[in-house]
């Protein structure tokens, strides 16, 4: 019997596909998320919208909170560590939860190195804006990816940009011959072996969700139609008027993403969506997606 193999790490992400992973800050919210049909919850002290509003350094959540949330649900629980902060990751791993998000939503702890995720038994999900970034994270051991979007904005535009970028770059690789793939690897700043694999598969070798700015059932279905495997919803649920209903509606829209009649039905009378922010109104240094490389 072998535990924590690559197959089990990447395999859990396979089981999450077609699902919605929701940010929660209390055990009560976690139960609402599970009841609404979330496939997993992300245990946090503050949702990205509050991190953005309050400023300061954002760190790993209190382990006590993470454990309390873990005990309140039967679905997988994820928690965030700062980029490069491998001790936060060690702490989260010791709590016996299911996945670590090495996340740009928190303030990076290392401006040069991401966590060497091969050193861990617990699987990691990491953010990406483009194919090169995605493949660098996989090379470091990430078993799942998510496009970054711009967290805490309720604005899907960056999530769309990043998903389209990754998919467009994959399609370009598929049209290259063997000679061109070497130079593509150089330009992407990604390992050649992974570049060759992506060209052959026509997709990333791990599951890729969308994140950052998804606030409505239509946003979730949009990302699914753009070809992601599932969605993270952060501030979009518990910063809205009726979280339980919105959560369930987003779950249903993610399953039936190709069925406009169902998406219309579940979108009716959901109440206030979270207040959105235009990306252009955010000072450049406060953009989260640019953290990590």
């Amino acid at each position: 019997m072998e535990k924590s193999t690559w197959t089990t790490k990447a395999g859990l992400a396979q089981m999450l596909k077609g699902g919605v992973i929701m940010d929660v800050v209390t055990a009560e919210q976690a139960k609402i998320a599970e009841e609404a049909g979330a496939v997993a919850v992300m245990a946090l002290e503050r949702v990205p919208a509050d991190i953005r509003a309050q400023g300061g350094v954002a760190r790993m959540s209190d382990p006590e909170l993470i454990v309390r949330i873990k005990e309140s649900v039967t679905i997988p629980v994820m928690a965030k560590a700062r980029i490069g902060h491998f001790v936060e990751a060690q702490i989260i791993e010791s709590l016996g939860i299911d996945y670590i998000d090495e996340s740009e939503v928190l303030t990076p702890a290392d401006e040069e190195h991401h966590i060497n995720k091969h050193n861990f038994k617990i699987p990691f999900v990491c953010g990406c804006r483009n194919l090169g970034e995605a493949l660098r994270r996989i090379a470091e051991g990430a078993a799942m990816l998510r496009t970054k979007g711009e967290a805490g904005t309720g604005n899907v535009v960056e999530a769309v940009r990043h998903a389209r970028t990754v998919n467009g770059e994959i399609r370009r690789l598929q049209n290259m011959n063997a000679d061109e793939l070497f130079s593509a690897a150089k330009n992407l700043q990604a390992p050649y072996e992974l570049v060759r694999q992506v060209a052959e598969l026509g997709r990333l070798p791990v599951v890729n969700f969308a994140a950052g700015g998804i606030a409505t059932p239509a946003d979730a279905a949009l990302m699914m139609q753009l070809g992601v495997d599932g969605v993270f919803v952060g501030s979009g649920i518990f910063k809205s008027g009726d979280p339980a209903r919105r959560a369930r509606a987003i779950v249903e829209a993610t399953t039936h993403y190709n069925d406009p009649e169902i998406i219309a039905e579940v979108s009716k009378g959901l109440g206030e969506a979270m207040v959105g922010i235009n990306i252009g109104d955010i000072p450049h240094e406060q953009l989260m997606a640019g953290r990590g490389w």
Partner: protein
Amino acid sequence: MTVGVLALQGDFREHAVMLHRIGAEVCEVRLPRHLAQVERLIIPGGESTTIGKLLAIYRLIEPIRERVAQGMPLWGTCAGAILLSRRITDGRDEQPTLGLMDLTARRNAFGSQLDSFEADLMIDAIGEAPHHAVFIRAPILEQPGPKVQVLARLADGAIVAAQQAHLLATCFHPELTRDERVHRYFLEL
């Protein structure tokens, strides 16, 4: 033969890929009307609470039970095995289930993701060579009723595959491996 794969959530694509490879037609099932097009159904791995909820919302539970009563073969992997079981422990009280096999599924029986594992498994029904089984936050099956045939156990005796007439439950994921034998076995049920 058209095999339906319940596509509400989970690794339904991996099942579809495996089925294509062994020459079956595949139809994704999300709504009751899709059920009419299939001769068999697979419920994939995923989150049993999520899939159960969507089964209930989209009124699939009764139509699936009816088709099974008429003889449609049905196979559940992991979350699917939980949904096939009549009883669930360590789940949510109100968790919807199909409740078709006389079994108790113990959810997350091995612990968290850190206890997910791979192991070689002897399954006589598919041949002598062991199946390299992948267990991800897997359940185990307990209290099999008299009509249930145990197909595989772990070294410690835990039941991880079972059959009741044309119903099949596996706690592991053949769809994540290259071993086609469990899928072929299901197509012959």
